[in-house]
Each structure stands twice: as structure tokens, then as C-alpha cells.
């Protein structure tokens, strides 16, 4: 009788907790979505930055022409005259996701534009990502930790920076795919279910579709498998979690055109194959051990080890041969710079020139993961008490991602979920300890707490935090007699939690200390929330194509980029080619719909070097280079008038370096005075005569009479000069974008062409123009 009553009570409480955690998750989703809308509210619903414009353009093409045309798309509006095979060189996950969203909405007659769908894809997927984090952390340390981790992830600044509304980039969906793949891996590991293993392979496939960072998964999971084997944690569940993933995952990955045979040919994937072999060997050993008597087994071991060594040597030899013969000679440039941080800056200036490939600074850790940085160690400790397969995985995850984030600032993004999971575990565990201590010492419930400390704590904890309550659900789950429970939750039988909790109950801290600690933790959380909201609102929401500044007379908007792109798109011929530094390639093709020479997909170094060389050459040589590329307009970004620091003059040294890397007549020292980069009167003549200098500062002196550059904070070196081969056709309102047109070549006099070229003196040219004027038809 009494037993049924208590079971009724727990069932009710369990149902209540379930509903509550459902609503908390819903709110977390809303939070994750809405915290990313600052950019829309403060600015506008617009695609941000550079790469998102390319993705947006691809999505437009996809929705307009369908999936088959998309796979076969040869883009002739970029990398002129080479073009680019978009279908085979792009990670299609993001595009297909947004395209599907658009298609669903429109088939429901909800006429949202492609742009709107693209803008809001990232916030939607961050909501998904926080739910995936909940699932993953729940598998590792229970629902309480899961909810805390989900809240933390919903507003971790590092992830916000990549997924604000409008930041339509691969990472937006990839982080969700990453966490979800890890969740399914852990789920398979905990349950040993082939169903989840298959799902895991599919999630991995989605990740491969979405982002080049999938190699992180295919290296991290084998590492974990190896770790499990080495620490003697091999089980059939581990086999089921890993083997199908490698087989199915590799097959599926090679279906993605951009990966293709790389899935078996490049060394980023070799680790997984090696571990695949090892796990089979181990499985065989365990199997044989099971069917043989111990004595026989010893004999077998000696036999196998001797043969095995030979086989191993052979396999290693084959692998080495494969690595050596693979097309990229092993590792690709970006991956190599991961292993050796100095690799890129030494050998590939084009990778080093991207700011997000630089190693991060210490403040950026505080900026991007904030208090999580302090909670992570606590989380790691919590993961060791007790260490399970799942918790060892997250420990491995955090350790590797900390290393990678230290190499490349962009990979901070991979660290963020790991940090959130760890901090969630830490917060949840500490709240658990503190609230239990308080509960234990409260006079009213003292007697009861001995029997059912876990359950009585729930009321008090709900007010504080959702953590402890859902923790109890976990416990209650196992006792619930309903068939639903059995069906869904039997996988939890393996969880080593029951014993651990009994141990924890004995951990009782002083009453006052617990209260103060809880207050401090809440304060810490509050600080994190404040920081995240500030980061979302102030630091990461600027779309970078429109700039704003506050002055004494209010808000001032600098919309020069779109002014220039709009001008190009409406007032030039459709097939005109526009040359600019590669940063603006994606935006030019997407916003101005004009053919560009190079763009942000920096696949052809020579081509970029050609443009770099033209920019660093004197006017005539530059004109010849551009003319050979059919360029009609040259676009430069100039911040000297309004003080916009990331303009072409500041990027100019990279143009020189990249250009000089391919064309040796461009030498970096020619542009530096005593190793210093300067554009004032001390600058070298090469610098003052190069095209970039001239196009940037043409007639700049007429604005204020002194030609004071507000970015470099100096007066420019050469103020009055004329352009002979270029003419200014458009300059935006704040001079941030200047567009020049190549002047057509002068008509040649028949028969005299060779002669006049050999002695290009001013007299011949004037004579020529005179004859021209007399008879323009000859």
C-alpha cells in the first residue's frame, strides 16, 4: 500500500520534472535563437561578412535552378578566366539545409525570401545545437548537467560570433552536426544499439556535408576508441559504436563531391582506419579468449604475437607507402598548420594572411568563453568521479579542442561546446553537492533525508536551478514501472550513477559555506550571462558591410560598400570584369553580380599573386596585367578619409608578399623603408608609384588640402599626381570604395605600331594623337 503510494508520488514528480525540463529546453531554444537577433534589431536583416555572401549566392542558385543544376554548376562569374566548379568544391550542407527550409516554407505558401531564410538559418541551428548539447551531456552526466550545458551553449560568445542572424556560414550548421554526431556516438557507446550507430553515420555524413572540420570527428572518435582499448575498457558496445561509423561514414563521406576519394586517400583519415584495424584485432583477441581455456589462450597469444608483428610491419609499410603516394603528400595546408602553428606563416602567405587563421591571444579566450575557462577544470575533475566511457570522451574532446583552439583562432568554435559541456557538468555537480549539504542540515527534513535525500531536495532546488531536480528524474527514471520507461530508458542500466550518488550523499559541507558557495556560483552565472549578452549585442552583431559610428550629432551610418556594389550592378555592363583584392570577391559577385578575378575561395595562388602583382606594380605594368585579364574596372577599398582601418593600404603588404611569392620581381624590401611600412614622405619610390597607392590616394589631397590619412595618422608622401591608364569612375560617399576604369588603349597608326612601341617618347605620342584627330578612320 505504502509502496504504491510512494511510487505514485515519484511517478507524478517524475512526470512534472519531465514537463518542466521540456519547457526549459524550449526556453533554451528561444534564448539561443533570440540572443542572436541583436544584429537584425540593431542593424537589419542582411547577410554578414564575406563568406556568407557566397553561401547566399549558392543558395539562390540552388533554389532557382534545382539540385541537379547545382551539382553541375560551373561558375563563370568568378576566377576569370578560369571559373570555378561550385558543385564539386563547396561543402553543400549549409546550402542544402537552407534550400530545404526555403522549399518547405514555400510549399506551405509562406513566401519568405531566400535571404530571410539564410539570415535566420544560423539562429535556428544554434537552438538545435543547444538541444544537442543537452542530449550529449545528459548521456555523459545526467539531465541536470545537460540542461546547464545547454543554457551555457545557448549563449556562449564564441559560438554567437559565428551564428548571429545573418552570419550564414558553414559553422552555423556544422556545430550542431558536430555535437549531434558526438551525442549519437556516446548514445551508441552507452546502449550498444546498431540503430544509433547507423544514425551516427548519417549525422557524420551531414557533418561532412557541412564543414571541413569533420576531420576533427574522424580523428577524435578513433582517439577515444584507442583510449578505451588501451585502458582496458573494450566492450562490444565500443565495437558497435565505432566499426559501423567508419564503414558507413567513409562510404557516405565519399559521396560528397568536395571530399570524394579524399575520404580514403588523405592522411587526415588514416588514423581512423588504423584504429579500425586495431579494434578488430582486439575484438578477435577477446573472442578467442572467450572460447579458449586460459592455458590454450597463452599458447595462442605467443603464436599470434609473433605472426602479428610481421603482419603489423607489413600493414605499416603499406600505410606509409599510401601516405607518400597520396595526391596531397599527406596533409593539406590548413591541417598542417594545425599541427605545426608556424607552418603556414612560413610557407603559405595566403593562409597566414587570413586573420582567423592566426593563433588567438589570451584575452580572446576570456572574451569568447569567459567564465567557462575557469569552470572547465572543475568539469574535468567531475568527469573523473567516476570515469565512464562517455565522460572519458568529453575529457578527450576538451583536451584536443583546447590544443586546436590555441593554433587557430577560428577553432575556438570547436572548443566552445566542449567548454560548455564541461562547465555544465561542473556547475551541475557543485550545485548538487551544495544543495544536498543544505538539505542534509535543514532541521525539518533531517530525518527524511537519510532515506530519500535525493527526492526531498527537489522543491528547494527548483527555485535555484533546474539542475538538481532533473538529476533526480534520472534516478526516478529507473524505478518507474511503466512500459514506456522500460522501452526508452533501459539503456541507462549501464550507468554507473547509483553507486556514485550514494557516495556523494556522504559529502556534506557546512551549511553557511554551501549557501555562500551557491550565491557565488549564481553570481558567476550572472556574470557570464551579462557578458554573453553584451558580446552578442555589441561585439559580434556588426554585419561589417555597413558600419556605424556614434558622434556628437548621433548615429552615423557608413554604407559605402553597398553603395559601390549597387553602382557596379546598375551602371556597368553585365559581363564586365572587376578586379579587386580577393577579400571583396564574394561580395562583388553576390551583390554587384559582376565577374571577378579572384575571390575568398583562395584556391589558385598564382591567380591571386597576379592580382597582387598588378596592385604592387607601377601604373603601366598594372594596366597591362589587368588588360590581359580583360579587366574593365578596378575596385580598391580606402579608409583614409574616415579612418576605416581594414582597407587595402593596410592589407597591401600581403599583396606584395603573395605577389612576390610567385613573381620574383616584386620584392618586399622595395616597399619598406628600413623594414618599416610607411606611406608618408619617407616611403620608398616603389611604394609611392605602385598602383594601390595611386588608386587609393588619387586626388585625396583635394579633400583637406594636406592629404592627411586618418588610418595611418600621417600625411601621405606623394600628393599631386595624375593617372594615365586609369580613370576614376566612381567613389563612394565616404571614399571607402573607389572604382577605376581602365582607359582603352590608344589607337595605333597602321604600320607604325612596332616603331612607336620601341621608342615611346612623348613626341611620338602627341604626333600620333594629332594624326588621329585629323583622320580618325585611319
Amino acid at each position: 500500500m505504502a509502496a504504491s503510494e510512494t511510487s505514485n508520488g515519484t511517478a507524478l514528480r517524475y512526470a512534472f520534472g519531465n514537463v518542466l525540463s521540456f519547457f526549459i529546453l524550449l526556453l533554451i531554444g528561444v534564448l539561443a535563437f533570440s540572443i542572436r537577433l541583436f544584429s537584425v534589431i540593431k542593424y537589419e536583416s542582411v547577410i554578414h561578412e564575406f563568406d556568407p555572401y557566397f553561401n547566399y549566392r549558392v543558395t539562390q542558385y540552388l533554389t532557382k535552378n534545382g539540385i541537379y543544376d547545382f551539382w553541375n554548376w560551373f561558375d563563370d562569374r568568378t576566377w576569370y578566366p578560369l571559373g570555378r566548379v561550385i558543385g564539386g568544391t563547396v561543402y553543400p550542407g549549409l546550402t542544402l539545409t537552407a534550400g530545404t527550409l526555403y522549399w518547405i516554407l514555400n510549399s506551405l505558401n509562406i513566401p519568405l525570401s531566400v535571404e530571410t531564410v539564410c539570415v535566420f538559418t544560423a539562429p535556428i541551428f544554434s537552438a538545435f545545437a543547444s538541444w544537442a548539447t543537452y542530449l550529449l551531456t545528459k548521456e555523459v552526466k545526467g539531465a541536470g548537467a545537460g540542461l546547464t550545458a545547454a543554457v551555457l551553449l545557448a549563449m556562449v560568445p564564441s559560438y554567437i560570433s559565428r551564428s548571429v542572424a545573418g552570419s550564414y556560414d558553414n559553422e552555423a550548421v556544422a556545430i550542431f552536426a558536430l555535437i549531434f554526431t558526438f551525442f549519437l556516438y556516446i548514445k551508441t557507446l552507452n546502449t550498444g544499439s546498431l540503430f544509433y550507430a547507423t544514425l551516427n553515420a548519417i549525422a557524420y555524413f551531414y557533418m561532412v556535408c557541412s564543414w571541413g572540420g569533420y576531420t576533427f570527428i574522424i580523428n577524435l572518435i578513433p582517439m577515444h576508441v584507442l583510449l578505451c582499448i588501451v585502458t582496458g575498457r573494450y566492450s562490444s558496445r565500443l565495437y558497435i559504436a565505432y566499426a559501423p561509423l567508419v564503414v558507413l561514414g567513409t562510404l557516405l563521406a565519399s559521396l560528397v563531391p568536395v571530399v570524394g576519394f579524399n575520404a580514403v586517400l588523405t592522411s587526415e583519415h588514416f588514423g581512423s582506419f588504423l584504429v579500425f584495424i586495431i579494434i578488430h584485432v582486439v575484438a578477435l583477441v577477446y573472442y578467442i579468449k572467450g572460447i579458449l581455456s586460459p592455458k590454450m589462450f597463452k599458447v595462442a597469444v605467443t603464436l599470434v604475437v609473433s605472426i602479428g608483428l610481421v603482419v603489423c610491419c607489413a600493414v605499416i609499410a603499406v600505410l606509409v607507402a599510401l601516405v607518400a603516394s597520396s595526391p596531397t603528400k599527406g596533409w593539406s595546408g590548413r591541417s598542417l598548420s594545425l599541427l605545426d602553428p608556424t607552418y603556414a606563416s612560413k610557407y603559405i602567405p595566403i593562409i597566414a594572411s587570413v586573420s582567423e587563421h592566426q593563433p588567438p591571444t589570451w584575452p580572446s579566450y576570456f572574451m569568447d568563453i569567459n567564465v567557462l575557462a575557469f569552470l572547465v577544470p572543475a568539469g574535468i575533475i567531475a568527469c573523473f568521479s567516476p570515469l565512464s566511457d562517455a565522460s572519458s570522451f568529453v575529457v578527450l574532446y576538451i583536451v584536443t579542442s583546447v590544443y586546436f583552439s590555441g593554433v587557430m583562432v577560428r577553432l575556438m568554435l570547436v572548443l566552445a561546446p566542449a567548454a560548455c559541456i564541461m562547465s555544465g557538468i561542473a556547475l551541475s555537480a557543485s550545485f548538487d553537492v551544495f544543495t544536498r549539504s543544505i538539505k542534509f542540515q535543514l532541521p525539518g527534513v533531517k530525518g527524511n533525508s537519510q532515506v530519500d535525500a535525493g527526492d526531498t531536495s527537489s522543491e528547494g532546488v527548483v527555485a535555484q536551478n533546474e539542475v538538481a531536480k532533473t538529476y533526480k528524474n534520472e534516478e526516478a527514471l529507473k524505478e518507474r514501472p511503466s512500459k514506456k520507461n522500460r522501452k526508452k530508458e533501459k539503456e541507462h542500466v549501464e550507468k554507473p550513477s547509483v553507486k556514485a550518488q550514494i557516495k556523494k550523499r556522504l559529502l556534506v559541507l557546512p551549511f553557511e559555506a554551501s549557501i555562500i558557495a551557491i550565491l557565488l556560483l549564481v553570481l558567476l552565472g550572472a556574470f557570464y550571462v551579462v557578458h554573453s549578452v553584451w558580446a552578442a549585442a555589441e561585439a559580434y552583431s556588426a554585419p561589417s558591410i555597413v558600419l556605424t559610428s556614434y558622434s556628437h550629432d548621433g548615429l552615423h551610418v557608413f554604407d559605402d560598400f553597398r553603395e559601390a556594389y549597387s553602382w557596379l550592378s546598375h551602371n556597368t555592363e553585365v559581363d564586365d570584369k572587376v578586379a579587386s583584392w580577393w577579400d571583396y570577391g564574394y561580395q562583388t559577385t553576390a551583390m554587384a553580380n559582376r565577374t571577378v578575378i579572384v575571390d575568398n575561395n583562395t584556391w589558385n595562388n598564382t591567380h591571386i599573386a597576379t592580382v597582387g602583382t598588378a596592385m604592387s606594380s607601377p601604373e603601366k605594368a598594372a594596366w597591362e596585367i589587368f588588360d590581359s585579364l580583360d579587366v574593365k574596372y578596378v575596385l580598391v577599398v580606402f579608409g583614409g578619409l574616415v579612418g576605416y582601418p581594414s582597407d587595402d593600404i593596410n592589407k597591401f603588404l600581403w599583396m606584395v608578399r603573395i605577389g612576390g611569392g610567385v613573381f620574383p620581381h616584386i620584392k618586399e624590401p622595395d616597399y619598406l623603408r628600413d623594414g618599416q611600412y610607411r606611406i608618408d614622405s619617407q616611403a620608398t619610390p616603389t611604394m609611392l608609384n605602385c598602383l594601390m597607392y595611386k588608386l587609393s590616394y588619387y586626388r585625396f589631397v583635394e579633400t583637406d588640402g594636406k592629404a592627411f590619412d586618418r588610418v595611418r595618422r600621417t600625411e601621405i608622401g606623394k600628393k599631386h599626381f595624375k593617372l594615365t591608364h586609369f580613370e576614376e569612375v566612381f567613389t563612394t560617399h565616404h571614399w571607402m570604395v573607389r572604382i577605376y576604369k581602365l582607359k582603352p588603349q590608344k589607337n595605333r597608326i597602321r604600320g607604325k605600331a612596332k616603331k612607336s612601341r620601341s621608342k615611346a617618347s612623348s613626341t611620338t605620342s602627341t604626333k600620333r594623337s594629332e594624326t588621329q584627330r585629323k583622320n580618325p578612320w585611319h
Partner: protein
Amino acid sequence: MEAQLSVRAILLLSLLPLLSLLARSSSVSHDIQIVNAERRIDLTSHIVKVFLTLKVENIGSSPVSDIYLAFPPTQVDHLALVKAAATVGKRKKKSYLPLGVNPTELPDAPNGTKYFSVSLVNPLSAGETLTIEVLYILTHSLEPFPVEISQSESQLVYYHDSAIILSPYDIKKQTTFLKTPSTKLESFTKVEPTNRAGTELKYGPYENQSPHSFSPVIVHFENNNPFAVVEELVREVEISHWGNLQITEHYKLMHAGARHKGVFSRVEYQSKPSFSGVSSFKNLLARLPPGVHSAYYRDEIGNISSSHLRTDPWKSELEIEPRYPLFGGWKSTFIIGYGLPLQDFLFESPDGRRYLNFSFGCPLVETVADKLTIKVVLPEGSKDPSAVVPFPVEQHLETKYSYLDIVGRTVVVLEKRNVVPEHNSPFQVYYTFNQVFMLAEPLMLASVFFFLFVTYVAYLHIDLSIRK
């Protein structure tokens, strides 16, 4: 190409008087003669407005009910609007009575002359006189010359017309006044007597001109007014019976003046605004109906931040700046959208139908719309749409699917070419609508969610496990 055409036109026109002497029109009643004609041509903007005052006398014996106006074929193509009114009453109590004007074909019209007939309310009986005021508007009739100008030059244009009013009737006495925007007049054809005073050029008075007389003149003058032409304007008016009228206007704007040549120098444009880019324009004014809310101004790549909306209870003015100043030949596209309170525009007619009363034409001040399409999106489930427009337009129906529509919304499409600000007169779209349809979408959503929850509840009670 255009220049060539116009040269040919001039040649043709100069032959006209000759020919007209040979082939006298016989179908037009000779009972009518014009006692006095005064024509005032306003050339101050790029839209040419001609005010014509005709004093008509019936010298025949039978009453005449139609007066014909003649136009040379080159002008007819650019004719946006012809309005006529009869003057009634004496000096002090003078009032105007609008008359119907319709294009008509007359047999043996010399050299493709086109006619418009003005139908008089009361036929003009023998011996009577009547004063008719005619207003007609010509677009694209100022031809820039030189065709291309640089940033520092000002824009000069040609205007072609006849010193003598083209008319199928004898004109006893006539005068033509041309008003130019500035005193800067390069040249003009002299047809004595010709006078020039300030910004006004006077041709005439000429006396006793026979029918279809023609004397081509060319006036070459400075006109730096913005030649803002909307090449295509699509206005979409979406009616929601929940209380909102949503207007979306897609503009394709162009500067139709002398083409910009060579360099555009921002430093000159900014430092010497008085003589650099004088013919360019950088802002436009849109007159919107009162009560405008949630207005936006954007183009395909995002919001354009340079706009100001001024609202007061009587009118709303939206001042917009395209992303860049428009020089001759430059183009730009943008979208303006705004919402209006429904009760100001939607009414119920006595026969139980509803009608939308909205203004036709382009809201931008002083612009020509080459092609205007108005799409009135009626609410889902409305029937029997019909449009009443005060001038001839092309009409057809379309279907549009918007938020969660199932049967689609009926769209009444009205198309008109060559629209000038004078076309901003109200038009009506009548339709019948059952209020029940308003509830269709909320009910649909509610039932979808209801079934979703029901399915979930059902799922919770189903056990699909194989082993018991």
C-alpha cells in the same frame, strides 16, 4: 540613333505644311473655326506641359458636338495625357466643365496626323462660340544635346514643336509661349514675329493660318532639372481585412537626361556642388497617403539608410536618397513599402460589395513612369473583382499565394504606360467578400496543432514493442 530619328522627324515635319496644302482634309467639319488660340508650353521640368486655350466658333449652319485636336505623330507617342474643359460662365463666376477626350481616327489624315476628339456636353449650335481649355502632357520630349556631358557641364536639351498650332481648323489668331527653366537659351528657330523676354519665348501672333499648317521650330536651352524616369514601377496593394493595407512598390529608376561621360570625381562633386553635376539628382520625394506606418526603403542587397519620413494628419512625405547620386544614364532600383490603415481606403458600396479606393500613379514627385503596374491583391476568398479607373488601362487577373493560402488570392492587375503625376487620381476596385474567410487560416493553424497533440497523445498510448 535617337538623334537620327529626330532628324528624320524634323524633315518629315517640315514637309508637312507643303503636303497639307495639297491634301486638304475633308472629313473634319469646316463649320468650325478657331477665333483665338493661345498655347503655353511649360518646359521647366522634363515633363512638358502644354496649356492650350481655344476659342471656337461655329460658323456653319448645323450644330457641332465634336471638336478635334490634331497632333503630329512624333508627339502622339510621347503624349501622356490630354484633358479638356469647357469654360462656363462669365469672368467672375467662371468655372470649368470637364469634357471627354478620346483618340479618334480620321480618314485621310495628312502625314499620319493623329486626332483626339473633344466631345462637347451641349453641341455647339450655329454662330455660338465656346472657350475650351486643353492640357496635354508630353514625356521624353526634351532631347539632350549634347547627348553626353561630363560632370562639370550643364545639361542642354532640344525641344521640337511647331510654331503654328497644328489643327484641322482655320485659326484666325494664335500665339505660343514657351517657358524655359533658366535664361540660358542656346538657340531657337525664328519664325517672325518671335520675341524673347527672360525665361519666356513668344511665337506669334500669327494670323489666318489654314488647317494643318505646320512650322517646325527647335529650341535649344539649358535644363538642369532632374530627369527622373521610373522605367518600371510595380505597386502591389495587399488588402487584409484584419485592418491593414500593405503597399510594396518596386522601382527601376533612371536618369533620362544627357548621359554622363568619363570621370566621376567625388571630390569635385562634394566640394563644388554649384557647378559639378548640376543635372544629377540625389534625392527624391515620395508623397504617400496620410497615416503611413512601418515604412521601409531598401533594395535587393539590403536597407538603404538615407531616408526621412515626415508624417502629419494630412499627408506623409518620404524623402529618399538612392545609394548614389544619379547622373545621366545611371540607373538604380529600390523598393518602398508601407502600411496604411484599412478604414481610410476600403469602403462598402450600397449594393453590399466592398471597394478599395486608392490613388493611381507614381508617388514620386515630378517623375515619369514609363510602365506602371498596379496589383491589387484581394483577400483570399473574394469574388467578382472589377476595377474602375478614370482613364484607359490594361487589366487582367492573376492568382497569388501568400501566407498559408490554399485557394490563392485574386490579384487585379492594372497596367498603364507613360504615367505622369497628373494621373494620381483615385481608382476603385470592387469585390465581394465573405467575412467567414477571415477565420480560415487561424482555424487551419489551430486544427493542425490540435491534431499534432492528438497524435502525440495517441502515440503515448500505443505500444509497438515486439516482445511483451
